[in-house]
């Protein structure tokens, strides 16, 4: 078979498509929000706002409620990410490196919580958490976030392990590396890019939870999406846009960085992950 799949025009077209989608998805909404947030008078049918000012945006950032919500969001997403990686690494290793008959089944089941309406799961879990006294606490919110986050972490890590060759570890062992050295000097450098992507995925999925946080947090755990949605109900467009920008900017930056890192890695010749 000839490698016509590596046709440069096709590759270039794919890269261009990627950039365009990336641009549209990341920059479009943020630009719109930025326009909203920095304007005071912007009504149909004007294409750009009549006046510009950063004052509303800065006012939003100075609000202690906003800062508290930012803290709660960072804390929840951070802890959730850490636990999800710890749980996901061994699971993804088994699922990615071994092939057994029920594998596709296990994967489907793993992913169910993301497919099954989160409302149904959230409410089912809420009954449990209420009885455990964890409802309304960060711990409870983290526990509930793990339900959709762990599958994402496993999914991201699966891709890494699908290309991971245990032979490197075997090789290192016979060269005299003890298990700890094998992990630090061989497995970690090989898995590093994939781990970073998985952490990013996990963080973002947790960061953007709204329904589950609301259900389990019961109005006591106020994360950014909760605050944002409250503002949406309130109806002040400038305040909404400010919060939305705050909410969307860190993920956008993180993703842009990850994409650049991945693109750089893709430019290098074959490594542990390509």
């Amino acid at each position, binding site marked *: 078979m000839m490698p016509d799949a590596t046709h440069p025009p096709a590759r270039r077209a794919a890269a261009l498509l990627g950039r365009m989608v990336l641009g549209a998805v990341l920059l479009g909404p943020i630009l719109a929000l930025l326009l909203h947030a920095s304007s005071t008078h912007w009504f149909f049918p004007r294409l750009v706002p009549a006046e510009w000012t950063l004052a509303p945006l800065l006012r939003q950032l100075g609000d202690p409620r906003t800062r508290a919500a930012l803290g709660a969001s960072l804390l929840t997403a951070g802890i959730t990410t850490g636990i999800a990686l710890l749980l996901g690494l061994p699971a993804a290793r088994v699922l990615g490196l071994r092939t057994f008959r029920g594998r596709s089944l296990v994967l489907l089941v793993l992913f169910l919580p993301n497919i099954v309406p989160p409302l149904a799961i959230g409410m089912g879990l809420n009954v449990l958490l209420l009885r455990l006294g964890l409802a309304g606490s960060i711990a409870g919110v983290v526990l509930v976030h793990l339900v959709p986050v762990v599958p994402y972490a496993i999914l991201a890590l699966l891709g890494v392990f699908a290309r991971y*060759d245990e*032979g*490197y570890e*075997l090789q290192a*062992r*016979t060269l005299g*590396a*003890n298990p700890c050295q094998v992990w630090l000097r061989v497995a970690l450098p090989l898995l590093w890019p994939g781990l970073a992507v998985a952490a990013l995925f996990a963080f973002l999925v947790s960061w953007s939870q709204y329904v589950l946080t609301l259900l389990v947090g019961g109005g006591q755990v106020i994360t950014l999406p909760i605050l944002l949605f409250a503002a949406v109900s309130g109806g002040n467009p400038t305040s909404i846009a400010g919060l939305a920008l705050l909410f969307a900017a860190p993920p956008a930056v993180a993703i842009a960085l990850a994409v650049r890192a991945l693109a750089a890695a893709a430019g290098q010749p074959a*490594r542990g992950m390509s």
Partner: protein
Amino acid sequence: MTRIALTGITRSYLRRAPPALAHVSLAVEPGTLLALLGASGSGKSTLLKLVAGVEAPDQGDIAFDGRSVLPVPAHRRRAVLVFQNAYLFPFLSVAENIAFGLRVQGASRATMQAEVRRMLDLVELPGIERKRPAQLSGGEQQRVALARALAIRPRVLLLDEPFSSLDSAVRHTLQEAVRRIQRELGITTLLVTHDRGEALAMADRVALLDRGALLAHETPQRLFARPPTRRAAHLMGVTTCLRGELAGGQLRTSLGVLAVDADGAPAGLATYAIRPEHMRLACAPEPNALPVRVLAETFRGERYEYLLQAGDETLRVHAFQPFTAPADAPAYVVLPTEHLFPVCDDAVAPPARPA
């Protein structure tokens, strides 16, 4: 120089399937190269992993110089594996790869530098310290993998089909290089291969493995010329085995009577084998000739292959010259006495492991 002794090694992966290795005992003399020859599924790679210590046998013992190494974990056995895939760490330079084993032992910077240079000279790739593995050709990668393995001064070198992904010219050069280095350093080596020619060309002795059992453990010349059993003969490329009644230096087969070298063997049922290139076609009867019909002639370049019908058996004969006889003339295949050798019937399958 380390002597390896394997005693009664058994290893099973699946509870109800036959074991990957059953009761294998082998000794490798210090400084020699033993080839483990077998098809996929013969257990040869399993044996290598057991010696390396990355897997443990269900039964039996593995000893280096008379001391069991079963309690020694893989990273302290100094038995280094080199795989078909060179497994050079992609995030390290060539020098860092070669120094890997020394670094995890805590060697000094100067020791590592000197050793890397020495090893690169040994594998005839001086001056490539700073290159990345991805910049090397397949053969160069294998040489670096070999250098990395030798840098820790291993007691035992374990080669798992190290040449099979290389094209034939590179493969031949690398085979010669490995043989030279192995002899120079006098390092006890196990080479796993499925390539008969490679095993015969490189090894001091060849162990023939088949479905987990050791069929033969011989010098290359003896194994090739006189495989001990039918199955071993088949694996060495012998296609003709004739069974008959042996009496007074004669084997009475269903195809005819052949003079054989009985050499004190008891009279009775016996099986004699002959290599396809040791038979010869003839136009007239002569001693040890059987009448045949030529079914097909195939030109394969280095040789001609003849498919013959003799009685109700088909024989395959290799010849270096075409057999030119008039069509419909009688044809005979000659089985020279000096090339007919006795083979044992195959041992029954090894007994199941006692529970």
